[in-house]
């Protein structure tokens, strides 16, 4: 697989690339765009978790599906400004992929996409995080190694795995005073329901590593979350409720008007904390980010 990325690119390519994005015909992107980083494989990502992983391995993806969504919901690591949008994650633009001629396409898992059209353009690698074979954190480690091997970034992969461990254990030290205190982690998309993360989720694995107790012990689906009516949050009592941003603006408005929400024990006790976006279905970078953000609250 390795020889795939071995062809060298001319050093002058950097300037060429900027110009291209500045407005030259995109056909030129395919011809001359390549390497801002000589020898860096040109990767297109069809969804966000793979984009996060590829970038964390030191390879800025050349294109990612739904970049605006990535900025809103994944946030970090920040994609380079010249990263191109591939369209929606449900329908990544095939003509664009054909033009870009990436060295590899990564993703195509969880969006009901047929792999055929992608494999005709470039080799396709999928990152199946939630097939239920292991806990998401372990799976993220394994997939990181696999991807590292595939991209010739074995050292970076090991480094990333170690770095995540270190970040999480740092956070654990900071959180030592709160160890044993239960908390619940939720996403709010709608004013009547919350998505609460529990067993089988990446966030649960991180909580375990931080020595924190997840107050939500109920059933979860295969992605490790459960959608509840907000009144069911009564079950967690007055614990700290960690809510992941972003909360859509109109939902925030409606939540403020909701007397049911206002009367929830944890809300009444003022125990709701909002933290910046963390992609709950992401990889090691998301896990480390979650640990750091929790430690900062």
């Amino acid at each position: 697989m390795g020889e795939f990325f071995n062809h060298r690119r001319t050093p002058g390519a950097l300037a060429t690339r900027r110009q291209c994005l500045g407005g030259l015909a995109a056909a030129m992107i395919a011809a001359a765009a390549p390497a801002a980083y000589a020898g860096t494989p040109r990767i297109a990502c069809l969804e966000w978790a793979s984009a996060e992983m590829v970038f964390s391995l030191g390879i800025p993806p050349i294109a990612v599906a739904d970049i605006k969504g990535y900025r809103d919901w994944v946030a970090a690591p920040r994609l380079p400004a010249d990263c191109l949008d591939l369209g929606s994650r449900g329908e990544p633009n095939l003509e664009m992929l054909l033009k870009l001629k990436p060295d590899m396409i990564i993703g195509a898992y969880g969006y009901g996409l047929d792999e055929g059209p992608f494999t005709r353009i470039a080799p396709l690698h999928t990152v199946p995080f939630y097939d239920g074979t292991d806990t998401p954190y372990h799976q993220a480690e394994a997939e990181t190694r696999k991807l590292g091997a595939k991209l010739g970034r074995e050292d970076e992969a090991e480094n990333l795995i170690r770095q995540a461990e270190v970040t999480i254990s740092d956070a654990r030290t900071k959180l030592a005073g709160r160890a044993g205190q239960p908390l619940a982690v939720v996403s709010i998309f709608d004013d009547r329901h919350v998505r609460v993360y529990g067993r089988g989720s990446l966030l649960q694995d991180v909580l375990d590593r931080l020595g924190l107790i997840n107050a939500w012990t109920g059933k979860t689906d295969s992605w490790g979350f459960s959608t509840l009516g907000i009144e069911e949050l009564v079950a967690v009592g007055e614990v700290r409720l960690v809510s992941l941003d972003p909360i859509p603006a109109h939902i925030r408005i409606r939540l403020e008007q909701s007397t049911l929400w206002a009367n929830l024990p944890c809300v009444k006790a003022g125990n709701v904390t909002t933290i910046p976006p963390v992609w709950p279905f992401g990889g090691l970078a998301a896990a480390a980010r979650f640990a750091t953000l929790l430690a900062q609250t």
Partner: protein
Amino acid sequence: MTTMQSAGEMTTPDGGKWPLLLLVGIPALLAAFLTITSLLRLLPMELWWYAISATDATDPRQLLYRHAFLPRVAISLLAGAALGLAGTLLQQTLRNPLAEPTTIGTNAGASIALTIATLYAPWTLEHGKEWVALAGGAVATLLVFGLVKGRRFSPIAIIIAGLVISLTCSSAGALLMAINREYSQELYIWQSGSLVQNGDATLFILLPWFALSCIVAFILLSPLRLLDLGDESVTSLGMSPAAIRLAGIGLAVALSAAVVAAVGVIGFVALAAPALVRIAGARTLRQRMIWAPVAGATLLWLTDRMVQVLPFASEIPAGTATAFLGAPLLLFLLPKMQFLPDPQGIMLSRHRRNGWLLLPPILAMLAALIWVVLAVGYDGVGWHWATGTELTELLPLRAPRVAVSLAAGVMLAIAGTLMQRMTGNPMAAPEVLGVSGGASLGVLLLFVMSPTLGRPAMLVAAFAGALVSLVIVAPTGSRRARSPERLLLAGVAVGTIASAFSAVVLASGDPRLDTLLAWLSGSTYRATPIDAFIAVLVAVAALAIVPFTARWLEVLPLGGTAARGLGLRLDRVRAILLVLVSASTAVATLVIGPLSFVGLMAPHLARMLGFQRALPQLFASAMLGGLILVCADWAGRMLIFPWQIPAGLLAALIGGPCFMLLIARRRQ
């Protein structure tokens, strides 16, 4: 005026209040029973009063009771009553038994305004989303009336314009949701009319709105009653019928917009409640204005209670359930309803022209277009005409999409032309008469019942669905049954069931939802070469078969008796045409989804270009249908590159307004 009123009251025979009391009483008792049994399961009776006045917030049961259960019961009653009143007002002012906020476009306008505000200007919702809904509802309603102003509020024209506006708004809404996927789930639940409450804020917003409307409605009672006498008499009494109508419609729009803002779109209550109380004996306007809100309240209350005892994994939104209950009720009521004759009933043009000469240029245009859309593309930076190896690389990506759009357009246009000829109704089309809806219902049922979706199974399901809905909707031959209102309403009923069902499936959170969503919005993204091959094959077969139906299609618009006199074996002809329409619609729906206006638009465009006779019209509309969808697919891939707008959606979004313009122009 006083004498007028008493005369009005006296001429209506008072059939006794018993039917009315039963109509309201039985559902109310049932709803009360269901409410009390679930209340008992929630909270012991001795706490009922205490939990209202001094809620114990540490007790989840009391919290639920006080901030979810009670507000929900109250809002179901209130929204139902508001809809009943709105329906009565509209039916009285428009002299149209089919008028209700959904059929005249108000709800669609209110709903799209709220969707846009939610996605792009959420701050506008802070100051009360009723106003946003009201603005949207008012604009949509005004548009509908603007379109038909040349026809003096002709009932059928209003319903048609309302239908077109609603379809356009809902495709715009679907588009907005498709490009804002992370928010979609919540918007779906809300748009399907959920009565779930999480506090009493909504209730206390809707309550004064409704109370005020009731007062205004009863002030308007006398003027509104005058409308029964006819416009000349009203004018001779020194009042302006237009002003009375404006007041009545304005009030109804305000009521409907408030309901949409509070709980989303709840269909059929505003139609069914006034219809039911009329059948049960409420003859005078005063009776209807009292009984229809009461009936509406009990209907919605009961529906909402029943929804909650049904054993489904996730709860069906009440707005969806009212569609499930209301649509069959409507189908059942149709034969019993009295329709006012439409003074300017829409007839097929008697003007004959041959039009064969125009076919070759259209065909040439289509061929040129296909070449252009295969070769030309936008790639994020500039336009590009692909040739040589580049073209051979792009063709596998572009050709299947172009082919399925072309084939779907051809098939829908054929189906539309056949239906318009068959029913003698210019508004007949697979999309309008629920045939596309039926096809998608078949696919959705398969989706729910089977874990895998094989193409052949989907095809059979779509065909079965289309055929069943067509058999339900299509006229049985008598002149009465061919009444355009009846036909349209039956179609709307079937279409409503289908879209309600898809709302349920979409709310279920099934992991295969993305594929379904793409299909429902008419995306060609997943079209495979095999899909393209099958679609083209069926389209060609349809084109080959239709010449044999030409004579029938010339004769059928003349009516059943005439057709029989000319030697047609009506049953057999009808059966063949039904199968032909169903097969074309089913295949087209499978590849392009249930949206799109092509089946309605293409035959009209063909006729306007001068193709009056059956066979030239069939071929011309087939070409035009293909042309429209191929253009829509191509434009959808280019407009917001690298994002893509589904072809069916874009066709509906652009086709709707074009069609409205055509209606408006022809009226002048």
